[in-house]
C-alpha cells in the first residue's frame, strides 16, 4: 500500500514537473524588435569540426555583434543528423519562439520546406539548397555564396606547389555543389600548371573525420601531393601534415591545425547574409528568395597564404586572377570546356562550352549547378 501511494505521488510530481514544459510557447505577437527577436540555427555538426559549422557559427557571432543581440536570443542546435532529427530540432526552435531559423546543411531542405508551410509567420533560410525558387513560399529562402571563385583562386596555390602534378580531392557527395567546387579548384590549378591532373574520392558524408582521414591517406598513397577537400573537418589537413604533403582547406584557416601542410583556404563569410536576413526581419522587409554573393561582395574570400611553404609567386598569381574575376575579364568556367555527368535519373549528360563563352555558375540560382566531370579529373570509386 505504502509503495502504491509512493508511486502515485512520484507520478504526480513528475507530471507536475513536465506540465510547464508543455505550456504554449510565447510566440512573439506584434512587433519583432531587437529585444525580443529570437534566431535559431540547425547545424549538421558543431564548431569543433573547425570547418564548415565553425565557419558558419562565426557568421552567427558576427551577426550577434553587429545587431547587439543577447546570448539567449540565439539558439543553436548542433549535431543534427540529416533525417528526422532535423524535424525535431526545427520544432524545438519553433517552440522556443524563434522568428527566423537558419538550416545550414544540404540535406535539411525537405524538412525545412515542410515546416515552413506550417509556420507562415516564421522565416526559414536554408543554405546550399535549391528548392526555394520553385516552392513559392514567402517565408522560405535559399542562400549560398559563389565559393567556386575562391576555390579557383585556392587552386592556383595548389597548382604552383605540386611536384608530382597530381592533386587529390576529398569530396563529400557526388552533388553539383561539390562537383562545381572541385572543378573550379582544378581549373585554378590548371591555369598556372597545364600538366596537373586531379583524383577525386568521395566520403559519402559531410562530416566523418575517420573516413576523411582514410580517404586523404589513400590519395596520398596514390601519389597526390596536394590534398584539398569538400568535407567539414580538418582531418584531411592533419593527414596531409602527418604524411609530409600539402593541403588546401575549406571553410577555415587550417594553418593552425596543420602548419606545415596547409597552404591556403577558400572561405565563406556567412555573417554578411545572416546579418542581412535578421536585419530584414527586424525592419519588416522581405528576404530574397535566393541569395548569392561572391568575391566582389566579400562573401567568399581566401584565408592568408601560408608564405612559409607556398611556392614563390603564388600571392602574385592569386592577386592577378582576383583582379580578373573582379573586373569580369576572367571567368572560372570559361570555354572551351567540356565535361560529362549524369542527371538526377542517372542518364548521361554532357556539356560543351564554346571558346569565348562561359558557364553562368550561380548566376540564376544560389545553388551551384555545374555537375560535369572535365578531362583531367578522375573520380575514384
Amino acid at each position, binding site marked *: 500500500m505504502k509503495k502504491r501511494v509512493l508511486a502515485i505521488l512520484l507520478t504526480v510530481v513528475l507530471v507536475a514537473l513536465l506540465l510547464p514544459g508543455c505550456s504554449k510557447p510565447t510566440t512573439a505577437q506584434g512587433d519583432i524588435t531587437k529585444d525580443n527577436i529570437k534566431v535559431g540555427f540547425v547545424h549538421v*555538426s*558543431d*564548431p*569543433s*569540426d*573547425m570547418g564548415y559549422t*565553425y565557419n558558419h557559427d562565426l557568421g552567427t557571432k558576427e551577426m550577434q555583434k553587429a545587431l547587439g543581440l543577447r546570448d539567449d536570443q540565439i539558439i543553436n542546435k*548542433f*549535431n543534427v543528423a540529416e533525417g528526422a532529427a532535423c524535424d525535431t530540432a526545427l520544432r524545438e526552435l519553433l517552440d522556443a519562439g524563434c522568428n527566423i531559423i537558419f538550416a545550414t546543411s544540404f540535406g535539411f531542405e525537405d524538412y525545412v520546406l515542410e515546416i515552413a508551410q506550417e509556420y507562415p509567420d516564421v522565416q526559414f533560410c536554408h543554405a546550399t539548397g535549391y528548392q526555394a525558387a520553385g516552392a513559392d513560399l514567402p517565408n522560405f529562402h535559399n542562400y549560398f555564396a559563389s565559393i567556386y571563385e575562391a576555390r579557383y583562386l585556392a587552386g592556383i596555390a595548389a597548382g604552383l606547389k605540386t611536384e608530382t602534378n597530381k592533386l587529390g580531392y576529398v569530396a563529400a557527395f557526388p552533388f553539383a555543389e561539390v562537383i562545381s567546387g572541385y572543378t573550379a579548384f582544378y581549373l585554378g590549378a590548371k591555369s598556372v600548371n597545364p600538366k596537373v591532373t586531379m583524383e577525386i*574520392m*568521395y566520403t*559519402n558524408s559531410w562530416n*566523418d*573525420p*575517420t573516413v576523411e*582521414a*582514410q*580517404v586523404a*591517406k*589513400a*590519395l596520398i*598513397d*596514390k601519389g597526390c601531393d596536394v590534398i584539398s577537400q569538400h568535407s567539414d*573537418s*580538418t*582531418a584531411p589537413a*592533419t*593527414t596531409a601534415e*602527418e604524411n609530409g604533403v600539402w593541403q588546401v582547406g575549406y571553410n577555415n584557416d587550417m594553418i593552425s*591545425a596543420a602548419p606545415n601542410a596547409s597552404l591556403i583556404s577558400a572561405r565563406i563569410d556567412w555573417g554578411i547574409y545572416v546579418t542581412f536576413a535578421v536585419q530584414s526581419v527586424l525592419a519588416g522587409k522581405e528576404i530574397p528568395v535566393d541569395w548569392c554573393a561572391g568575391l566582389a561582395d566579400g562573401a567568399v574570400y581566401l584565408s592568408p597564404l601560408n608564405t612559409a611553404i607556398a611556392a614563390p609567386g603564388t600571392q602574385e598569381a592569386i592577386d592577378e586572377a582576383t583582379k580578373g574575376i573582379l573586373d569580369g575579364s576572367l571567368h572560372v568556367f570559361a570555354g572551351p570546356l567540356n565535361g560529362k555527368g549524369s542527371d538526377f535519373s542517372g542518364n548521361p549528360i554532357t556539356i560543351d562550352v564554346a571558346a569565348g563563352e562561359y558557364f553562368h555558375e550561380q548566376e540564376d540560382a544560389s545553388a551551384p549547378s555545374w555537375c560535369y566531370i572535365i578531362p583531367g579529373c578522375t573520380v*575514384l*570509386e
Partner: protein
Amino acid sequence: MLDTTVALLVAAVLAGTPLLLGALGEILTERSGNLNLGVEGMMFMGAITGLIGSFFYEQAVIGAGLAPSGALSALIALLVSFLAGAFGALIYGFLTITLRANQNVTGLILTIFGTGFGNFFGEYFGLKAGGYIAVSKATKSAFAPINIPYLSDLPVVGKLFFSYNWMVYFAIALAIAMAWFFFKSRVGLNLRAVGEDPAAADAAGINVSRYRYFATVIGGGICGIGGMYMCMVTTSGVWVHGCVSGYGWLAVALVIFATWRPLRGMVLAVIFGGLMVMRMYISIPGLPAQIYEMVPYVITILVLVITSIRQSKEHAMPASCGLNYFREDR
C-alpha cells in the same frame, strides 16, 4: 601494384587496431559469460576521457610554465581511458552480476549511455576550452608512427612492420598475452570454466562472481583504450562528435568472426580494417561505396551461419555467455 598493396595493408592495420582493442576487451568479457553489448559506449567513454585527461595534463603543465611530455601525456590518456571503460563495465557488472539484470538490455543501455557521455562531455569541455578540445603537438607526436633507425627505412618490410604508432604494437602484444592467458595459464582456464559452466566452476571452488567482475571490468577498460585510439590517432587528437560511430559494433562482430580467440582476432581485425578502407585503394568500376561498407557485416553473418551449421564446440560461443548465474538454481 606492390605499392598499392603495401599501402592498403598499412591502412588496414591502422583501421583495424581500434577494432582489435574493442574485440579483445569483449572477448575477455564474453569468455567469463557476460555478453556486454556496450562496447560502443565504453569506447566512447574511453575516447573522451583519454582526450581530456591528456588535455588537462597539458594545460596544467603549460600553465606552470613547463613543456608537456608527450610520453607522459600518452600514458595518462591510456590510464584514464582504461579507467573510464572499466567504470562503464563496472556499472554493467553491478547490474548483471549482482542485481542479475538482463545482459542484452543492460549492454544496449550502456551503449546509449556511453555515446551520450562521450558526446556530452566532448561538447561541454569543447565550449569551456573556447571552441574545441585538441591536444598539443607533444601529445600528437607521441601518437605518431614510430621510427626505428634502419628497420623503418627497409623497403616494404619497414613500411609493413615498423611504421605504426605504439598503440598498434600495444594491441598486438595484448592479443598475444591474452591468448597465453586463456590457453596456458591456470587463471585463464578457470575463467573459461566460468564462461562455459559456472555451476561446475562454482563446485570446483572458483568464485564465479569475482571472476566475472574482474573479466568484465578489465575487458571494459581495454574497450576504453580502443576508443582512445579513435580520438588520438584516427582524428589526430581532436574531439570530434560521434567519432567512434559504429566501431564498437564492428568490434562485437569481430568477436564472433574470431570465434572468441584473441590471435584469430588479431589477424581478422586487419581483414576487417582492410574491408573498410578497400574501396579507397582497389576500385571496381560501378560498384557503389555502400556495398563495400556492408562487406564486414555480411561476412559476420556468413560466419554465424557457417559456425552454426558446423556445430563445432571448439568454435562456439562460451556456453553460459548471456546467462546470469544463480547459485540457488544449481
